[in-house]
């Protein structure tokens, strides 16, 4: 509940999602019997010069400058590079570009010959943090940020909104009621929704008691 630390550990589901992403690579040497990795290949072996998409969890097991593949840095990082240089990072919709922008970038940094990615992701986050703080203080639960923020940012945003609400409640001295526990509340809502859809399914029950006052009181 209260643990806010984001730390990619073995069990972290976020991390598993990130490492599932595909990276484009160029084959350098002839790899025996690995033709199945390439969807369009006809041969049983991987021929050098082909471009294939490999999942990150395989790539990161290999050494950085290994002989088999050459990792190509995705374009998004180049575009963001341009935006960073022109300082308009707050308007980029990172969520749409790539949902795991930062973590992915972190994994790709060793493969980048130009040593650009590391700096890019750092700069982007630095410039967007201020904007993130802004929108989390002025909450009013709009869900639009979901497209514009990537996963780390949206978790930060949620944490910000939560803290802000707690603070406002404390200021207004209104947050002291005993709250219903969260899971129970969601469970009840689910049950009510199920009941309500049942009600609408069996339509003739609706006209009677609850609609008119006579029978209920």
């Amino acid at each position, binding site marked *: 509940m209260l643990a806010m630390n984001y730390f990619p550990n073995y069990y972290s589901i976020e991390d598993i999602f990130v490492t599932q992403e595909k990276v484009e690579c160029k084959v350098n040497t002839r790899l025996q019997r690995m033709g199945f990795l390439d969807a369009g290949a006809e041969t049983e072996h991987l021929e050098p010069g082909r471009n294939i998409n490999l999942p990150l969890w395989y790539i990161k097991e290999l050494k950085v400058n290994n002989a088999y593949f050459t990792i190509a840095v995705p374009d998004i990082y180049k575009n963001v590079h341009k935006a960073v240089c022109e300082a308009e990072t707050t308007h980029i919709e990172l969520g749409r570009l790539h949902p795991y922008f930062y973590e992915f970038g972190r994994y790709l940094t060793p493969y980048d010959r130009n040593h650009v990615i590391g700096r890019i992701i750092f700069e982007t986050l630095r410039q967007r943090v201020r904007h993130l703080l802004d929108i989390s203080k002025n909450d009013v639960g709009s869900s639009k940020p979901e497209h514009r923020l990537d996963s780390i940012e949206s978790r930060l945003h949620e944490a910000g909104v939560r803290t802000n609400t707690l603070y406002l409640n404390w200021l207004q001295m*209104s947050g002291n009621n005993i709250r219903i526990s969260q899971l129970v509340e969601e469970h009840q809502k689910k049950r009510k929704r199920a009941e309500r859809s049942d009600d609408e399914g069996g339509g003739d029950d*609706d*006209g*009677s008691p*609850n*609609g*008119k*006052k*006579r029978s*209920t*009181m």
Partner: protein
Amino acid sequence: MFIQDLKNDFYRQLISKRILIIVNYDVDAICASKILQSLFKYDHMLYTVVPIMGVTGLRRAYNEHQGDVKYVLLVNCGGCVDIVELLQPTEDVTFYICDSHRPLDVCNVYSDRQVCILGDPALEENIPAFESIFYDSDGEDEDDDDNEEEDEAGADSGAGESDGEGDGESGEREQPARRKLSRLERHEQRVLRQRARRQWELERDRIMFDYTQFSYYGRSSALQIFELAWKLSKDNMDLLWWAIVGISEQLLLGKIESGAYTLELEHIQSHVSRLTNKTNDQNTMSASKINFENDLHLVLYRHWTVTESMRYSRYSACQLKLWTLRGEKRLHELLVEMGLPLVHARQTYSAMDLVLRKEFYTMVEQLAEKYSIPDIVYGTFTLSFGYRSRYAAADYVYALLAILQSIKKHKTPEDCFMEASDALTRQHKQLLNAGIDNAKLLHAAIFRQVQSCLEAHQVHSTGSFFYYVLQEEHAFFSYPYALALLAKFVLHGHVATTRARQAPDLPLIATCPLDAAQGMCLLVGIAPVREDSPKNFFGKAFDQAAQKSKTSLLQDFFEPSIVQLRQSDLTRFLDALTVLLT
């Protein structure tokens, strides 16, 4: 029995006991229950609040809580029905009734111990004396029985004279105190006594009929409970404001006369001045303040535009006939004379120019006589807290009524009750504002309905009363309060437009279908325009008409002028009512 010393005989009895509070579905009751709740919280008395709507609700609520509570408090309900007979309580349950409905049931008034009515018997009118309605029949019955026995013995002995004489004598000897009367004389005496008894019964029936004929309202229960709070020195501005809302509701819905209201105003003003001087943060702008001022009978005009408020308020609309074009012109003339530009009049009141706002009241007051709306001015209180909120008591009343009527598919009457109860606290201002918005919609809908009704001449007369029938269910008018407001508006509007001479003397019956599936409809009776006093005889009249036409009437609500009956019985019932009222 009556309890006058609320503090000792009522409140002190209840300390550290658990109480069941049963509350009727009206604004006065809600205010009274809120004051009670805050009082009980001071002393940590456990209580349970149950809202009800009518007699069936009362019975159901009592049955559910039956074995658990020994003290039951009925707010604005139960005064006019015999509680002991209705609920069949056990011996140790005590009922406290704080009801503004009159006439109070005589069994409740003369009950020894179980039913206590909070109030001052001296203020009540026409309560029949105990002797005149309850027959102390013990002595007389014994006499009769004895005489009958003697007679029986005598009659038996008719067969065998000697035995009869012997018996008769022995009977006589058994009661040596009895005068020796001949059988004939005894017979005569018995006949006389029976005749006297019958006469007494006739007299009693007449007294009871007079007593229960008219139903009216007494003092507001919210005000009464506030006085209890005052005697306990636990009163504060919030409680006072709720009491003011309670009594304003009585005035606005026509339950009490304006004379009685003005009398109460003086008492309230003394409370206001006392409480205002007590608080020591008077210099804070945002403290809550209650001010007395003369205000206008315009519905919600502070939260609406001036033109709309004038159009939708019953008094101004009927006097100026604002549903006609001529009426509109007259309204414009009035505005022009007031110096209020039309542009401003069409804006929300709070967006009007400050100067215009300040002058609005005085201008209307000056022109009231000329435009024949003299009664538009009345005295009331306003509550201001914070920098922005300023509400008149009438605003609260209309907002709460709108909330109480906002029953929807997934919003039960109890939900509405709880919401209205919450709206009274100052923290839930948004509930109040939502209620005000709803009230605006309600009044606009009433006006449109009245307009269409008067243009289509849908008000029919039967010679002894008017009636107005709504053909289909309406989101607003299928509920008692809204229907009553609509009916009142229709009656006044009709009287204003018609040329019949006896129009101001005729009452109006309005009906609206409640529930198309079950075929029930709601029937409301409104007193004639000319009558100022709110005593109406509809309760009794409906009852008798139902008996005559053999229709089943559901007089469930505690307001006797609102009943439910079957749609199919409507015409028969109206016919019987016509016959009755001529």
